[in-house]
């Protein structure tokens, strides 16, 4: 595929790596916010290429991973309600909650179905008018507009058996909260490419303004990431802190106005519970009162029982950038992709799964 090969050219990569290593100051640490970046960085061996000049830390940008156990337990309880069809993106199936997982619930008889798109869930609702169909809305600003669109469609078409369990989270507030915590020091942020396509690069401007933190938004191909890292190094060298875009083919300063308008119409912000971070003010989405009848949490009462966190699991620390996956005592021993203890070992964007799959040689 020509289009992809352009972003994997080894000659261009060597040039960018060379420019990164020309930096002569103390070793730098950058955080990649997004789980997709974590995977690409490990998959293409970018850590090896930029070491020892730059060290990379993973951030909280994996929506599956940051879903709190209490919320996951609720989703599993919803799936077990009589007659309910629970629809979800595939990654959520295997994440262990306090006592079970959605795939375990399915093996026990719950009707849990994997969807590739929110509109497919709406189709399931159309095909099963006598059964409640709940979509498990886990994600960031990238998938929130599609949920909003599905709700507007359901409203327009009078589909009254479609509900969403909204667990959507907002990325800039959590990044600001992480910087405010000050637990981990780093010199720049690899900003999320897909999220910023929706919300625009301007959404990140408080990072340089309030925290003197350089932020460069990156795509997901190896050359995008290397260019982003080279731009971050250049900002550090010039003692600057700005928001820049290394992913101009997709990201604009103002974002995608249509998608943002959809979100604005259906959702309002609320406090959200993040695994590892706890409750972060105004970092989540909930349905506006006018769309309350689509809110699964409001319509269906479930009592999932006490929340238990997996013992010894360092997912919380890993999502805050304090630890890297191999430092967790369970990593690769009690916790593997086939038998995960924490969500970071499950999700295709999870830091532990990426380190397990691509990290150790």
């Amino acid at each position, binding site marked *: 595929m020509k289009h992809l090969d352009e972003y994997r050219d080894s000659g261009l*990569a060597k040039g960018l790596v060379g420019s990164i290593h020309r930096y002569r100051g103390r070793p730098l640490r950058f955080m990649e916010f997004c789980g997709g970046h974590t995977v690409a960085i490990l998959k293409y061996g970018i850590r090896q290429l930029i070491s020892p000049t730059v060290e990379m830390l993973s951030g909280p940008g994996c929506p599956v991973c940051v879903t709190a156990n209490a919320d996951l337990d609720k989703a599993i309880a919803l799936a077990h309600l009589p007659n309910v069809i629970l629809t979800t993106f595939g990654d959520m199936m295997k994440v262990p909650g306090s006592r079970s997982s959605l*795939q375990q619930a399915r093996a026990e008889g719950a009707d849990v179905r994997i969807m590739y798109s929110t509109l497919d869930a709406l189709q399931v609702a159309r095909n099963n008018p006598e059964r409640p169909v709940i979509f498990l809305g886990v994600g960031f600003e990238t998938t929130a507009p599609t949920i909003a669109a599905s709700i507007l469609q359901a409203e327009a078409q009078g589909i009254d058996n479609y509900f969403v369990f909204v667990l959507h989270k907002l990325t800039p507030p959590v990044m600001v909260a992480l910087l405010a915590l000050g637990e981990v020091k780093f010199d720049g942020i690899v900003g999320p490419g897909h999220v910023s396509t929706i919300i625009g690069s301007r959404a990140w401007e408080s990072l340089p303004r309030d925290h003197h933190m350089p932020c460069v938004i990156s795509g997901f191909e190896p050359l995008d990431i290397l260019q982003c890292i080279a731009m971050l190094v250049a900002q550090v060298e010039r003692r600057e802190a700005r928001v820049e875009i290394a992913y101009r083919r997709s990201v604009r300063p103002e974002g995608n106005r249509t998608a943002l308008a959809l979100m604005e119409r259906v959702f309002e912000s609320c406090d959200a519970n993040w695994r590892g971070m706890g409750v972060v003010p105004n970092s989540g989405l909930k349905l506006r009162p006018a769309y309350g009848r689509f809110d699964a949490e409001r319509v269906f009462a479930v009592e999932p029982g006490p929340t238990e966190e997996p013992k010894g699991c360092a997912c919380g620390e890993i999502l805050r950038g304090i630890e890297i996956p191999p430092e967790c005592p369970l990593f690769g021993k009690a916790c593997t992709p086939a038998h995960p203890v924490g969500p970071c070992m499950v999700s295709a964007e999870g830091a532990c799964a990426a380190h397990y799959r691509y990290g150790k040689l």
Partner: protein
Amino acid sequence: MTQDRILLAHGSGGQLSHELVERLFLKYFDNPILARLDDAAVVGVSGFWFQVPGSSSLKPETSNPKLAFTTDSYVVNPIFFPGGDIGKLAICGTVNDLAMSGARPLYLSAAFIIEEGLSLDDLERIVVSMRQAADEAGVEIITGDTKVVSKGSADGLFINTTGVGIVPERIEISGSNARPGDKVIVSGTIGDHGVAIMGQREGLEFSAPLRSDCAPLNRLVAAMLEASKQIHCLRDPTRGGLATTLSELAAQSGVGILIYEDRIPIHDAVRGACEMLGLDPLHVANEGKLVAVVDEADAEKVLACMRGHLYGTEAAIIGEVRVEHPGRVVMRTPLGTSRLVDMLVGDLLPRIC
């Protein structure tokens, strides 16, 4: 969280499937032939005469041949897909499992589990397709069974086929025979089947039409075995894809395998679809491809032979067997870095073969 029920992922051909086989089936069925875990069981026989498919005369096998024996069940959804259907798959899959042991496939059984309500026209199309695939492979279906279950107890149609074949005396092919220095050859583009099935099932539209690669590989294998006596391993990378097959070979042989990302043949459309869906094409199923591990001295000769065959025109040497990292598969990326390639974990796509 303890696992006390069968998950869909136990049937994916990846790590949970392996654990199920090793911890349950091998535990109770254990014997040296089964424990080899090759695509077909190969057992010694003596004084063997057999009837060649399509003839009534007996042919003596005067050397010391071995008998290859294998079985497989097919539950693909949808039952018709671009490039094939469940019937063609059921013939090719079992023929290929026999061929991967170096056997000449001879006879198959076919057992049908049919859901009440299946259209007779559809069933006939599938049976015709099985006959065509069997003719192409040069095998005959000589026994069978039919069961009909009530609506909802099966999904349309499930097929099981069992096959027997003869392995000539000199042929010694097993997943445990890879040696450091050997070259790793793949017979063509990977991921075609899995992506074609997924596209059909999920209604994804691709710019270039994608077809399953479903095909009988026994004639390709026969030509390869004719060209070289130094073919050490053969395996068809079905469920779990190329990554899982190479991991199995590395583990069984106690060797490392190094592959080069830019030498692995992948259709642009498959690469694009995988990129879009977040899949690794190395984990996507194939139904008409094989992986051969061949002595370095014969690798080019075998490659040339494969490229001259209908089902091997895009064959490529993708890597080599190493002493380093035993039991592991390592991939060199186009950026010059290296990373591990792991077996598929969990279910990539439900029911692709």
